[in-house]
């Protein structure tokens, strides 16, 4: 199990590094999907099978598909890649990278103390998660549904604003294309 954990962790780190450094948006997205799948494997090893499935279905599936759709709608082709190459010079990323690396080093230093208790020996099954979710966290579930509704209405409103100004607000079926 330990070996599987470290291999997946290495894959997650390398593919995330590729995801934030690629110039082409689709390449970055594909690397990020690999990273999310590796994290899903880690969830499974840590004894959280339900969340591992959610990670694959919602993160690597739904959210990334939305990203791919937007990249397609924006038609990010070769000129965007050239633009990114122009934007992504070392002088723009070296300082934030050094600062983030310092913060990370501090974090690792804080974590490297004693009291290394193991994780992943016992699984927390979906039934326990469901009982907690709809028991003590019921209010949180209701708030999450409100958040999703407001996100839906907000995204719809933002997507429709220009068209309603143009006067064709009665025809939402023809939306699409940028």
């Amino acid at each position, binding site marked *: *199990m*330990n070996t599987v*954990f*470290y291999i997946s962790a290495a894959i*997650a*780190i390398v593919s995330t590094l590729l*995801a*934030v450094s690629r110039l082409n*948006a689709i390449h970055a997205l594909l690397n*990020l999907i690999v*990273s999310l799948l590796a994290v899903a494997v*880690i969830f499974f090893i*840590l*004894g*959280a099978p*339900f969340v591992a499935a*959610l990670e694959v279905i*919602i*993160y690597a599936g*739904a*959210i990334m598909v*939305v*990203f791919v759709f*937007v*990249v397609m709608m*924006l038609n*990010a082709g070769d000129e965007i890649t050239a*633009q*990114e190459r122009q*934007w*992504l010079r070392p002088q*723009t*990323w070296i300082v934030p990278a050094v600062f*983030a*690396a310092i*913060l*990370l080093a501090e*974090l690792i230093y804080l*974590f490297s103390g004693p009291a*290394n*208790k*193991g*994780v*992943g020996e*016992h699984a*927390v099954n979906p039934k326990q*998660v469901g*009982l*907690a*979710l709809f028991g003590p*966290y019921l209010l*949180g579930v209701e708030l*999450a549904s409100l958040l999703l509704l407001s*996100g*839906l209405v907000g*995204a719809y409103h*933002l*997507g429709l*604003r220009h068209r309603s100004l143009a006067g064709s607000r009665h025809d939402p079926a023809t939306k699409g294309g*940028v």
Partner: protein
Amino acid sequence: MDAISMHHGLILAGILFALGLIGVLARRNLLFILLSIEIMLNAAGLAFIVAGARWIQADGQVMFIFILTMAAAEVAVGLALALQFHRDFKTLDADAASKLRG
């Protein structure tokens, strides 16, 4: 089943979070900034799962589900804003919107 050190899980979450932070700070394309925010949210969720596995409680997974919900809502609104931005400015350069009333 061999146990995995909790610190190693948290360090992995920290590394992924730092990579996402670098992406947010260093990229200028709105799409990549949103992508990096997703990486950071996912790393925070990983930390919750590791903590939940440490104390064998379901609360970590419940928190991850809430983070997932929030990420879904955030990405819907964020990408709608990115599309709107692209319509208005014909670019995805975040610096194009550096003025509040431009």
